[in-house]
């Protein structure tokens, strides 16, 4: 991949909207034992998966600027898939640590999500998003690959 900063942000947000949110909804329903329809938006168990994923996305939007600096050291100004894979997991681990250590208690006021609460959720979102980067996005957006991950016309 050869993303631009705007491209990273676009791609991150669009994958969040199109893959992250629907998958999180399923996990949130699962966390509330599929008992409620319409869903109980007010229950922390329902809300926290959304908060957790949002925290990763916000962290990612900031880290994207750092990634762009790393790219400048590459002659090809590229971002190998392996890096994408690795840093995605790093982002998860950072947010998980922040939750575990209580830094985010102001968000997770009722309880701190556990490893088991988050790892399957994140793994699912991550796997689907990564597959989208490998080709799924291009099927719908042919200009995306020439725009460093930005959406829209060339």
């Amino acid at each position, binding site marked *: 991949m050869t993303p631009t900063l705007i491209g990273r942000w676009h791609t991150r947000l669009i994958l969040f909207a199109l893959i992250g949110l629907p998958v999180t909804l399923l996990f949130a329903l699962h966390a509330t034992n599929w008992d409620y329809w319409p869903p109980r938006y007010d229950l922390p168990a329902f809300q926290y998966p959304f908060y957790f994923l949002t925290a990763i996305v916000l962290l990612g939007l900031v880290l994207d600027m750092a990634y762009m600096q790393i*790219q400048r050291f590459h*002659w*090809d100004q590229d971002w190998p898939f*392996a890096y994408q894979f690795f840093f995605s997991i790093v982002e998860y681990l950072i947010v998980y640590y922040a939750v575990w250590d209580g830094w985010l208690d102001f968000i997770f006021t009722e309880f701190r999500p556990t490893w088991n609460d988050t790892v399957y959720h994140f793994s699912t979102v991550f796997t689907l998003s990564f597959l989208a980067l490998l080709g799924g996005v291009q099927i*719908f957006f042919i200009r995306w*690959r020439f725009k460093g991950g930005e959406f829209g016309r060339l």
Partner: protein
Amino acid sequence: MPIEISWRRTGATAGGRTVLTGNGPFRMGRSSGNDVALDHPQVSRFHAEVRLDGGRVTIIDQKSQNGTLIAGNRITSAQWREGDDLAIGPFILEYRQTRTAGARDANDPDLQATVLGQADAPRDGPRDARQPAPRDDGSSRFPGPVFNTRIVALRDLQATQKIAEEVDYLTVGGGIGSFCWVDHLRVFGVPTSAIRVIGVAPDRKPYAKWGRLCRNSQIPDTERIRSNSISTPDNIWGFPGYASREFVRDILNGRLVGLKYLLQVFGEPAITESYTPRTGDVYRSFDTEATRIGWDQMWRLGQVVGIRKTDDERFVIAYRMLSTQVGANETADERSQRERFIIARHIHISTGYPASNYLPDLQSFRQKHPNSHAVVNAYEEHDEIYRSLEQKGGTILIRGRGIVASRVIQRVWEARKVNKSIRLLHLVRAPVGAGHKYDLAQRTVRSDVEQQPFNWPKACWGGTLRKQLEAATPEERARLLAAWDGTTTADRDDWNQIIEEGTRDGWYKVSVGNVAAIAEKSGKLVTRLESRDRQENVDLTADFIVDCTGLIARLDETPLIADLIRTYDLPRNRAGATGSEQSLAGLAVANSFEIPGLQNGRGRAFAAGVVASRGPYAAVDSFLGLQYAALRSVDQLAALKAPSVSRFGPFRSAYQWAKWCVGSPP
């Protein structure tokens, strides 16, 4: 009446001329003793005879190996009419009665004493599309006086009764650039009936010329080319890439090695060696997509000889149909029937590389030793050299350090498996030292060559560098391109190992220096290097010399383009430095690859490939670059509301992708 014969190599503007007085017979051929001496391996020693009888000029082929062609047809004995092209090997000859040879010649800058290699001269079949541009003196040559103007009146064209077709979309070239454009048009919704392709490959293959250059430069079908997995000219989405296709095929055949390709794509280029597809797989993918989009129905076999704007906001393309059916004694009428016009609203020009240059010292050697086949350009057919090395052993000298040199070194390494007495001398002009620097990065150097997975930094195709170049002013573009450019080869483990092995075992040796002279001494080629630091002269003795310095994209060596530049005062891109480099710059194009100087009201013209080099996009001469150019120009057509071109949003895209997957026409 005396006649003046002038000649040039296919694609080149430089050539020679001579005046023949009397009745002859005059001799044409490779030997220097001929009246018309044409130095090239494809020309027989005594190739053809010329007889003058009053106003009549007759050509008699002397059972030459590669034949003599008049106006595209192989002849044994035929009348040569003024204005007809006579083709002998890579040379195009024409003549005129000397009374008409006037002042025009005095300031004709084209005819100089340099001769160029013919990267694109087909070995067989009709010669390439590039041939002398229409004359501006109203001679009898097609398309004749009707083209002596910037805007051609439709009525004048109709009067010729030569308008064969009128279409919305037409592409000139018929190569991979044309193919990508047509593929996009088709997938965006345009029917085959609205598109025409004019090209010179008798087999209609979009990869005919590219494949020939691959084979000549020693890339057989099973070898891998320097291109990425997602650079898929048969698939506008770039998915699935060649790596996943190769993976699936290998796994289905029970070969787990296929997993390697996915891992390559995953880690490239930082952790793993970049994936590159096999030439044969690329050929096959072209064939499949060509069938799917109806390529053959749109194809017209012909040489485009001129393009003009029309007075109804379109373009007229003059071309001469090529046919293998036509007999040697074709009448003027029959010949005239093969000369046609096509009128199109939107045109696309992608004629590719006009020629390959020889290094000047090699060129002068070849002129002095016309019979020597031991000095070749790597893009010429030269398999004979490796066969000879395998049989008899010997020393081969390679000039240049790019990707072609790497491949030739590999070929020599393969030949050494047959014959261990082969040695390789690698001559480069100067040591590389440190790699290019840009921003915070520096290009790596290994074995004295700069290494880079592809021919530009990767972000030039669709990343930060693409964006930056597009936004830059012409001056900035020249600076950026100079920073990213340069001769590079790929960091391939097998190539690195060959160099290490050869250096260790002593059969591979690098020399650095400028060439003072090349001489033939008792059957060997002796290259003398300019002495440096008052040291003794260094002589490199070899049996063969292969020039691997590559293809040169001199736009004005494509007569069709040169004529367009002259006629419409088309501006060129800025190449950076002045002088010789400027001739490598392409036509100035907009970000959409439209040629602004050719806009004719609603009629629009686009360029792709080297025709647009050094403009808003660096990697124009690559699969992905050609796809990018096609996408930009077809998007522009959609914005202009050109007939049948959709905006191609996500749903149409996914639907068309599904059609591609099942192989159904768009």
